[in-house]
């Protein structure tokens, strides 16, 4: 005769398993990682080879900051079910957090071997190849996404970013244009445009797009890029304000500190004031708006 606890172990109750999983999910959703892990312990005792429980445990551990244990949980889930898309995506994200980028890329390859239409896997693989500086490989991944989903704004932006790294600025600009056409609020595409214009010394355009991006999301890097563009336009007060904002968001930004010093020095010599003209520095001969512009002479001075 079996002892009562052994009976439970060998004849697990489906109801108990489901209620433990349900309780774990609820605990995870309300941020109670300890509670979630406790419930998952119950579930995995009842059914040790339950891939969904291992995957959830991996996510809980990731949230709790235990990356190695999370990685182990995702690997356990894949031992239970090797064709689990969620398991492979979880494993890849755990590897990413651990900085094991090559293995992360391999995880996406394993996933794509049985699910070649996974948009998430192609996008994330492209991102990790970008981080590994394999820009051509990243572009191939984004092209796979765009073949499946031509309206995928983020894929267009990422492709543009990789092209920018390869020095193909015209193609990159086209990709950012496409991304912004499909998603006019795509901040990343706006930020990439800022960097593209800044490298071409189109400071007026850079300020314009930095302002648009900052209206949606603040980032110290964007404020810094905006400050640099203002410096290029000899708008030292606006440049100072931008660098100060960048430093308020990230006090460790050394470049911003140096640039702030330069802006302060410039202010003693020159400080343009653009007034209501947000397009300052983008003068276009023959444009009706530019013809009426009150600060046209100064705009011409700083327009490349």
């Amino acid at each position, binding site marked *: 005769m079996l002892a009562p606890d052994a009976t439970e172990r060998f004849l697990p109750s489906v109801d108990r398993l489901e209620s433990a999983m349900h309780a774990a999910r609820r605990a995870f959703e309300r941020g109670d990682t300890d509670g979630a892990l406790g419930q998952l312990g119950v579930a995995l005792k009842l059914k040790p080879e339950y891939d969904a429980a291992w995957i959830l445990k991996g996510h809980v551990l990731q949230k709790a900051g235990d990356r190695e244990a999370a990685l182990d949980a995702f690997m356990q889930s894949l031992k239970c079910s090797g064709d689990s898309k969620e398991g492979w995506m979880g494993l890849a994200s755990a590897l990413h957090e651990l900085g094991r980028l090559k293995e992360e890329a391999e995880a996406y390859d394993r996933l794509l071997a049985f699910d070649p239409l996974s948009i998430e896997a192609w996008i994330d693989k492209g991102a990790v190849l970008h981080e590994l500086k394999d820009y051509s490989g990243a572009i191939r991944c984004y092209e796979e996404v765009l073949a499946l989903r031509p309206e995928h704004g983020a894929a267009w932006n990422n492709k543009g970013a990789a092209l920018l790294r390869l020095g193909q600025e015209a193609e990159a600009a086209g990709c950012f244009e496409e991304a912004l056409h499909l998603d006019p609020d795509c901040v990343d595409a706006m930020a990439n445009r800022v960097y593209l214009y800044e490298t071409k010394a189109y400071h007026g355009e850079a300020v314009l797009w930095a302002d648009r991006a900052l209206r949606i999301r603040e980032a110290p890097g964007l404020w810094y890029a905006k400050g640099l563009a203002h410096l290029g336009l000899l708008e030292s007060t606006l440049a100072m304000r931008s660098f100060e904002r960048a430093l308020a968001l990230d006090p460790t930004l050394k470049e911003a500190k140096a640039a702030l010093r330069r802006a302060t020095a410039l202010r003693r010599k020159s400080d343009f004031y653009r007034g209501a003209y947000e397009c300052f520095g983008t003068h*276009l001969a023959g444009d009706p708006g530019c013809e009426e512009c009150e600060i046209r002479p100064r705009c011409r001075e700083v327009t490349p």
Partner: protein
Amino acid sequence: MSVPSAAEVEHADWPTLQRMCESLGLNPKGRSGVVRMRVLDHVRRRIRPESWRAGRDHMAALLTRLGYPNLSEDLWESTIRLDAPAPWVGLGQAQVAGGFLSEAAKSFDRAAQMGDRSALLHRAEALGAGGDYDRAIAACESYLADRPGNLRALGMKADFLARSGFKEEAARVLLAAADAHPEAPFLRSSAGTSFLKAGRPEVALEAFGLPKLADAPEIEGAINHGVALLVLGRTREAVDIFQKAIEADPDRVEALNNLAVAQLQLGQPELAAANLARAAKGVDSARIRLNLAKVAPNPAPRPRAKKPAARKKPKP
């Protein structure tokens, strides 16, 4: 001025663009491309539909249906306002689902006081579920005071009357509903059946009206019509109805049983036995078996066992 379309902005010339800026309260200064982008941004934000997000009331209603009445109650309570009866109705439904019927009745009452008359029917349902048929009927009557012909309310009232034992009154309510809703012929059959159950076959017959050709949805009523005729001694008419019902649906065992009873009354025991045998094959019913036992010819009495003749003792 109404917001221009994106196409209008895209193709507007410079003076038009300036006018658009003025009317929309936007900065009209700058390079034309930048001004156009400014107006387009404004238009895009104005015409972009707000993405739908489930409100607390939506979530509460879903939680009731998903089987979480306690959570639903909490959510409904958080949505209650002084000028809206709907949250009270939702709260009442959650309370019904949670088994708190008297609380639910109070919630529905609050909604009704705030002007939602349909809450009276919800209240009637909650009271009926708790077995308080008198107050459930009263709630239906309150609702019917404004909407005398409302089919749902009449049906509920009839149901509560029948459940509380007032079968004839229930039948009269159904008959009134049938008069108010000629588009629903099944109501007359229901009323007739109710009268029959209440022991008033002659009134039932009036309710059924003229015999109809039985089609599938009406067959139940037709069979009951036949029973009413049978009870009133109009056996041949009853037989006609049962036969039509069987033609329409040969598997209706109650029609076969009733036909057999009628045939028995007409002195046709063989036909009755055949029909009862068919009915007994279709369904295992004690009533049919009893009827069959009555009709089946009694088996011949067994010959009594003869006493064996006394053996003579063999002579030694």
